[in-house]
């Protein structure tokens, strides 16, 4: 898995360069009158040096066993969970909390959790209702109503 250590350190080298360039644009000031870019510039330079050391280290030192075992395999469930949360966030204002939570719970329980239909429908109906009761009624937190009027 040395390959993955190389990828991560190269990514950090790139990040360090970007941060350093932007920090120079912001203005690092001087040591006696430090500007807003001073600390980010310091971070960029230190990160650049360390990630280069990390990158070159991969040629002389193999990565640990744990990393070998945990090869980066992005499962469909992981991607689906991440994308569904983003969709939830972008739809909550339009559709409202109750509808979007019902749909999201249904999707996650059925397709990611692989629950049966009965359990999926039960969980998708009961969960939004209970959370709505807890947050809206007891804690008096506002949730977007969306196309519903409550």
């Amino acid at each position: 898995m040395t390959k993955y250590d190389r990828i991560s350190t190269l990514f950090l080298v790139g990040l360090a360069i970007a941060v350093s360039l932007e920090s120079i644009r912001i203005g690092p000031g001087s040591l006696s009158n430090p500007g807003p870019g001073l600390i980010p510039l310091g971070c960029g330079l230190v990160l650049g040096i360390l990630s280069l050391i990390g990158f070159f280290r991969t040629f002389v030192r193999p990565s640990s066993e744990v990393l070998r075992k945990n090869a980066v395999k992005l499962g469909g469930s992981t991607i689906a969970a991440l994308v569904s949360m983003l969709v939830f966030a972008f739809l909550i204002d339009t559709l409202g909390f109750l509808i979007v939570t019902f749909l999201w719970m249904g999707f996650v329980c059925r397709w990611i959790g692989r629950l049966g239909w009965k359990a999926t429908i039960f969980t998708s109906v009961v969960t939004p209702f209970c959370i709505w009761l807890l947050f809206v009624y007891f804690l008096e937190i506002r949730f977007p109503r969306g196309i519903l009027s409550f």
Partner: protein
Amino acid sequence: METITNVGMGFATALTWANITYCFIGVLVGTLIGVLPGLGPTATISLLLPVTYYLNPISAIIMLSGVYYGAMYGGSTTAILVNIPGETASIVTCLDGYQMARQGRAGAALGIAAFGSFIAGTLSVVGLMLVAPPLAEFGLRFGPPEFFALIFMAFSLLICLASGDMLKAVMITVVGVWVGTIGVDFISGDTRFSYGSLTLSDGVGIVPVAMGLFGVAEVLENIDKQEQQAKILKTRLKGLLPNRQDWKESWLPILRGSAIGFFMGTIPGGGGVMTTFTSYALEKKISKHPERFGKGAIEGVAGPESANNASVAAHYVPLLTFGIPTTVVMAIILGGLMIHGISPSPTFIKENPQLFWGLIASMYMGNVMLLVLNLPLIGLWVRVLAIPYRILFPLILLFCIIGVYCLNYNIWEVVIMVIFGFVGYLMRRFEYEPAPFVFALLLGPMIENALRQSLIISEGSFGIFFTRPISGVLMIVGIMFFIIPALPGFKRKKFDVAD
């Protein structure tokens, strides 16, 4: 005399119906979470943060603290009965606790874990009560150079004690400090790295980041393993009260564990697993029969469980006196306090006596609640273990989304949480520890302000950090923590369960 008056005021604050209820909810939820493997106190406290937005700060911190020490209590149940630690600090309890359960002594193991935790928790609160106020008085002498040196030392300790690769820990800390600079610069008023985004100009908040790195990432990590269900040891839970022989073998380990837990709990990065392993190693080392360890020695349960709970109150010492969190949970609690407009500093105890002493009183109260809760409800906690993860994880994710959304009703903060969830997932895979990142994010702005103010005072000279006595000592200690692991012949000791 003043301490007694203050404790009285603390109890008057904690013993209101509202605070008793929040303390009870905290310890109950905490124990429940501690029992459930795969959902640690960090994720739970992140999830419960939104519930506290609408509470007063005293009730909020009482509840969050209850969750923390409740989780530490609950973690032992799964370790003893299922051989799976409910939270990482209970890993060592599996060694002898599970063996005791297999020998039909699950009741004694659970009992001594509960009593040990109670005694250690209570002693640790006494320690917090006695140590924190004079330490805060001492902290009043701190100016920007001393604060910079203190945070530098905290960072170096955290990195030195990080369980993984030290280089990676330093890199991720630096990234955390940089992410902490995103947003408006409070000295010049300029915005940095926000590129016109209103959300980013307010800075990257600790709550979306912590929920992403610990809540979402933990779920993503576990989704693939969701078919694994804990196998509960079928054993009769009898004799929960330890007998005379159990007490004879356990009372000294409990006291030693309490001392270790309290001392290590005050050190940045020193709590949790490190505390319990140190206690276990010490008990094994000084035992007349070390061969019994790993085969059901009650000292192997009593010591580490006591150390584990003693460290919880100890974590509050640096947090409430200097505003420096020593664990990720403390970082999130600090974030929670900041939401309520409270920034712990050396003047915190003087300015917020009700909050400080109310918290201390609530800890005494919470420890009693846990003892009363834990012993009779062990049967119920065992049943909780049977809940399949595929029912739990959608609820965890939903609470993450709601928690972050309710913070400012801003969907972009949910997006930040999802991004950090993915980043946290990758970090676990690539073996980058998320904890130093969270510390750096939280302490980054503090260290930046302290550094810039110090440089302005000294007209650009770094000598200011070494010429003032307090900051000089702290800087030298901090530098030593960086140098020692790099010295030839120094091997970073990794705790090996087999040893």
